[in-house]
């Protein structure tokens, strides 16, 4: 029986589980027309969960701990991802409340299950939190499955829309295959070391036979790569993003990706790296391939969600630079800084796409023509997000790229080629991101009626926009936060 005191450190997780159940209860009580109330409760509850998380961070001064027989990590790294998952989920739910109202006007997109949607998102966010903190293969497998199962349902949420059904089914089939491979990798790793604890594996991994370890790593990478949409496990991304409800696509590209990276880093850097395998080169190659493939395939896209999907693949490549550069003051926190800033401008871009999609009923980039006159604020924010995705100062995206390039250069001059690949890819990506700006600002509008966003979605947009600009101009607090978080990663 674990000590009761350990339960207190689980306060955020317990509260999230309770919140999900509360939402299901609230959903029973409110009428069909006012399901948004469930969303508001969810946002409030998620923000409330930041309190125990903050308390946990404050109580952590002494250093990292592991509870429940070494299966669950309580360290700055896990807390960082708790904050990230909570913020991302809250923003996505904030944006969803309006998305559903707008979608209800189109019969094929109407959903009778709005209340459950928010509960599912909260449960997914619980899964993300658990993923980032798992220090044991079994808990890892369970939390990944929790995230996957809820995500499959969310991707196929618009039952009347065939594309959404296609997205759900595709995501499920790919996901199930990736999970199966990953579990096989887990079992090999267990067979080699005789333990499921990542930290015990780290001590024993140097003595195990190399070929078997490599097979295990490759199989596990299939599972993690699926979650972070890394090449060659990326094929599902464009179809799922295109078909899924836009807020869900936003959530997958930020939440699942971040948690996937947390797991990847914990497994690769903690458990596998001591074996002496050349993990850095492997990750660097995967990073370069993801960047190039994602960017080159994004170039011809006309659908904004498909374009953002390929951009998400290329950003996975950029974040992998941070994994390759792990070690050293920049390298340890590079991934965290990138993921945190990436959350805001990616969510923002998806929110604009959601708003336009709901208003115009189209996700085609040419239909963004003249947006600067139809909705100046909206166009400005979208331009900001696009420049941030490219990495043009003074946006958060620039600082993230700057920081992650610095991490690679600091790590070793041998990674200069990877930085060069990143530079080339930034330039390639400019072309398709500016394509959106071009449509909004350079082309005349087909129909000059103004576009106004509903209030909750607008609030979510301005929050992400302000964060994009502020984190670009004054990233100091974020660096401090990320550095303390990475210091505690044992």
């Amino acid at each position, binding site marked *: 029986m674990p000590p009761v005191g350990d339960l207190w450190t689980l306060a955020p997780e317990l509260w999230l589980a309770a919140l999900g159940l509360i939402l299901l209860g609230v959903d029973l009580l409110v009428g069909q027309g006012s399901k948004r109330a469930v969303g508001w409760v969810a946002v409030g509850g998620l923000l409330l969960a930041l309190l125990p998380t903050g308390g946990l961070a404050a109580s952590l001064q002494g250093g990292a701990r592991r509870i429940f027989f070494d299966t669950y990590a309580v360290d700055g790294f896990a807390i960082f991802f708790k904050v990230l998952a909570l913020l991302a989920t809250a923003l996505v739910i904030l944006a969803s409340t309006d998305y559903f109202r707008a979608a209800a006007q189109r019969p094929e997109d109407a959903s009778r299950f709005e209340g459950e949607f928010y509960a599912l998102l909260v449960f997914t966010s619980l899964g993300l939190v658990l993923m980032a903190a798992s220090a044991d293969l079994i808990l890892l497998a369970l939390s990944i499955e929790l995230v996957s199962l809820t995500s499959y349902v969310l991707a196929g949420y618009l039952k009347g829309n065939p594309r959404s059904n296609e997205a759900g089914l595709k995501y499920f089939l790919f996901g199930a295959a990736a999970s199966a491979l990953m579990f096989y990798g887990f079992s090999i790793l267990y067979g080699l070391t005789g333990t499921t604890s990542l930290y015990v594996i780290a001590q024993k991994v140097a003595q195990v036979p190399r070929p078997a370890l490599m097979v295990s790593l490759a199989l596990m990478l299939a599972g993690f790569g699926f979650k972070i949409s890394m090449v060659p496990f990326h094929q599902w991304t464009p179809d799922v993003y295109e078909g899924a409800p836009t807020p869900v696509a936003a959530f997958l590209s930020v939440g699942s990706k971040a948690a996937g990276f947390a797991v990847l880093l914990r497994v690769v850097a903690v458990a596998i790296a001591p074996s002496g395998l050349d993990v850095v080169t492997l990750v660097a190659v995967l990073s370069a391939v993801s960047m190039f493939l994602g960017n080159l395939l994004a170039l011809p896209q006309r659908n904004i969600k498909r374009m953002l999907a390929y951009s998400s693949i290329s950003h996975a490549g950029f974040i992998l630079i941070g994994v390759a550069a792990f070690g050293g003051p920049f390298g340890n926190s590079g991934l965290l800084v990138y993921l945190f800033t990436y959350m805001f401008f990616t969510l923002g871009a998806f929110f604009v796409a959601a708003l336009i999609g709901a208003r115009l009923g189209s996700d085609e980039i040419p239909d963004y023509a003249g947006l600067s006159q139809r909705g100046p604020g909206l166009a400005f924010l979208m331009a900001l997000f696009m420049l941030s995705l490219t990495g043009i100062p*003074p946006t958060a995206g620039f600082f993230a790229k*700057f920081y992650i390039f610095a991490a690679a250069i600091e790590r070793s001059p041998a990674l200069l080629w990877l930085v060069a690949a990143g*530079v080339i890819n930034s330039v390639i990506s*400019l072309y398709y991101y500016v394509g959106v700006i071009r449509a909004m600002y350079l082309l005349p509008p087909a129909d000059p009626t103004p576009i106004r966003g509903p209030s909750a979605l607008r609030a979510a947009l301005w929050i992400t926009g302000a964060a994009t600009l502020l984190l670009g101009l004054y990233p100091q607090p974020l660096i401090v936060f990320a550095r303390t978080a990475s210091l505690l990663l044992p």
Partner: protein
Amino acid sequence: MLSLMLFLPLAGGILLLFFRNPRAIRGIALGASLLSLYVAVVLLGRFNPRGGMQLVESATWIPSVGISYTVGLDGLSLPLVLLTQVLSAVSIVYSWRVELRLKEYMFLLLLLQTAMLGVFVALDFFLFYIFWEVTLVPMYFLIGIWGGPRKEYAAIKFFLFTLVGSLAMLVGILLLYFHAQPRTFHVLSLIQQQPLARDLRLATIAFWGFFLSFAIKVPMWPFHTWLPDAHVEAPTAGSVILAGILLKLGTYGFVRFSLPLFPQVFQQYAHLIAILALLGIIYGALVSMAQMDLKKLVAYSSVNHMGYVMLGVAAAAAAYGQPAKAAAATTALNGAVFEMVAHGVITGSLFMIVGVIYDYRAHTRGVNEFGGLGALLPVYTGITTIAMLASLGLPGLMGFVAEFLIFLGSFGVFPALAATGLVGIVITAAMFLWTIQRIFLGPPNPRWKGLLDLDTRELVALVPLVAAMVIFGLYPRPLLEIIDTAMAAVVAALR
């Protein structure tokens, strides 16, 4: 004070977003620009020509990474700051009649002004890089929205080309940062430390990173292909700023960063870079001569003139480590910096001159379509002739002083290369004289009978620039004194 000057235009730009009345928007734009110019003049009064870096303002910004907000002025940046201020104000005056999306237009011009000023005064590489990149965005929109028929192509080409260079420079900056002890982005402390002096392999990588960025901006042959497109398609004010100031960002970078930070590597490749500069000089002049479009003609003459600047910089680099050639190197650098200012003033006015005839009068830029304009538009002809003669380097005007100093200096370092460059001057002279002949002389073309001469607004924009060409052509000393202190310091550090 310096920061006030720096952010005044941006503040004005944000303020005017809240207004609807076109008169108010124009007034705020011009007011903010002029106020910033006024502060610059006050700073000029406080500037000590014999001092080094001065009027420095510093604040902590992102201490965990060693980034600070530091700005300052010296003899290299001050003339370029003044040039920026004058050309920006003049561009706003010239753009008085713009009506299409006026608010965005003025906002972008003011944002651009702050960004350009920032590049010249920033003394922290992170800050410098932010301003450097921010210049791209407004220019992209200025070309893309208010440009000519092929505006979209020109705008994205400009953006892509310069971004390649910028990111290469970012890698160079990071290499410097990680080899400094303690790690810092502070420019002066990096110059003092010479962090890459011990590792020539990395220094070479970093040098070429910086080189790519600056060479694309200058633009040096063979990186110049974005320039004719961007210049021709940009609206007149955009061309003025592009040619007058943005090209100087590149040469400024060479003098401010490449020369003091990587002297050994720069010397190693100085002859190669001088040859590229010569190719730019001769190629620019020849291609310019072949142009039928007046705007393209002026654009290619920029490639030629920026070649002179690079020749002077390369001469200074080649003289590294040879105290005997220090005097020649200083002269060449003085000429190069003087040419930056001169080219800004001269080519800025030439683009406006083209705009005067194209935007509001003839709506054509074909050199051969005119003829005999001299009798019809006497004031316009006079101003154009002075500007073109200044551009071809006629003694008594600003261009001559610059080119004379450049060739004088580089002759002392590499005589053969310098002598080859003189060919360019001859071609440029022929080109401009032939242009004057085709447009203003000969029998009047009856098609242009109804054209009006310059109006007040155009005179307000053009006369100060032409006056500067004559004044600094006859009496360059005050300007040269400011430049010389800074350049002597650069060369002294190189010895």
